[in-house]
């Protein structure tokens, strides 16, 4: 294979293609970053008071279950009655809608996602097309290490020379390499808020998991909390606290005396 003959590329290619392409992509990425920051308003918080109240009630009862050892029996019973009793909080029907409904009837979330997609993906695709149109059909540079022939279609789109060394790449593949490599550079320049496209892609792959912070199904959670609270056995750890304190102090006094 032609590994021993280094291709001689004229310096015109370097002046007119390599450097301008790099600069153009860097500038485009900067632009998209700033556009993202400008357009990125926080998603509208359209939760009603009742929904917020329900979520917080669930949190409270979870905390109650966790820290029940520290409150005396009557207090615990009062709280349990409030949550899981006959006319308790958790026996009422929750107002929160299930996530499916919420996503479908919520136009503002859709608009938000579309905005994010627009400012993120479209300039990159557009630039890719521009690069492909202008800088097509020639080799632009060399990768410093030898690669196996499987990388040939990846690095040399549009050139069908079988004997061309795999290390040489075309402008389109260089564009894609730039897109990935500049992520690192940009995370240095902007400390936060950087890589939005990979996050968006990950988010698109699990739309259900990320979309709804309201909780999966309020009714099921209410039931869960109710049964958990009813099944709890309460033991007040501090019950014998006074006697234990007296013991400890006695021992200490004895020890000091000796």
């Amino acid at each position, binding site marked *: 294979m032609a590994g021993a003959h*280094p291709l001689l*590329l*004229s*310096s015109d*290619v*370097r002046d007119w293609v*390599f*450097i301008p392409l*790099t600069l153009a992509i860097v500038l485009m990425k900067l632009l998209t970053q700033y556009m993202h920051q400008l357009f990125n308003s926080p998603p509208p918080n359209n939760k009603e008071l009742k929904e917020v109240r329900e979520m917080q009630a669930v949190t409270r009862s979870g905390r109650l279950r966790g820290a029940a050892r520290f409150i005396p029996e009557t207090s615990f019973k009062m709280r349990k009655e409030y949550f899981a009793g006959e006319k308790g909080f958790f026996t009422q029907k929750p107002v929160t809608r299930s996530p499916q409904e919420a996503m479908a009837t919520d136009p503002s979330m859709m608009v938000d996602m579309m905005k994010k997609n627009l400012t993120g993906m479209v300039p990159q695709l557009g630039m890719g097309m521009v690069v492909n149109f202008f800088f097509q059909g020639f080799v632009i*540079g*060399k*990768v*410093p*290490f*030898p690669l196996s022939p499987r990388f040939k279609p990846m690095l040399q789109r549009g050139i069908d020379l079988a004997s061309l060394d795999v290390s040489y790449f075309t402008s389109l593949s260089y564009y894609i*390499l*730039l897109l*990935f*490599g*500049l*992520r*690192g*550079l940009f*995370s*240095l320049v902007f*400390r936060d808020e950087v890589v939005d496209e990979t996050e968006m892609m990950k988010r698109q792959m699990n739309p259900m998991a990320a979309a709804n912070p309201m909780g999966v199904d309020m009714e099921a959670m209410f039931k869960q909390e109710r049964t958990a609270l009813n099944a709890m056995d309460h033991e007040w750890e501090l019950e014998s606290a006074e006697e234990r304190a007296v013991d400890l102090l006695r021992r200490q006094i004895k020890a000091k005396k000796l």
Partner: protein
Amino acid sequence: MPPKKGAKSKPDELINPAAYKANFQALGFLRNFVAIISGIVVGICGVVGWHGFVYHFVAQLACAAAMILKGCTHPPSYFVSWNTLLFFGVFSSTTMLSYILFWMIFYNLCHVF
């Protein structure tokens, strides 16, 4: 130097989440920086071949050593363990790709044309 974590009491340690996160961010920043700089240097020198990656790992180790010298005297108290300091971002795609990219750019600029 990033702040220490919270009070240590055997056997469990308390971790101050803000400080921990700030430590990690500092480490990531440094790793990225070292990757880019070492990529540029290696590209200008004209290193060709797979052993160019060895320089990347050497540079990352040097970065960890510099961190230890500079202020992080006892790594388990700043990060959870030695492994975190040594291996945290070394194999992450961001640093590797940045290294490759800058290596490529500067090699091309200086040696191919």
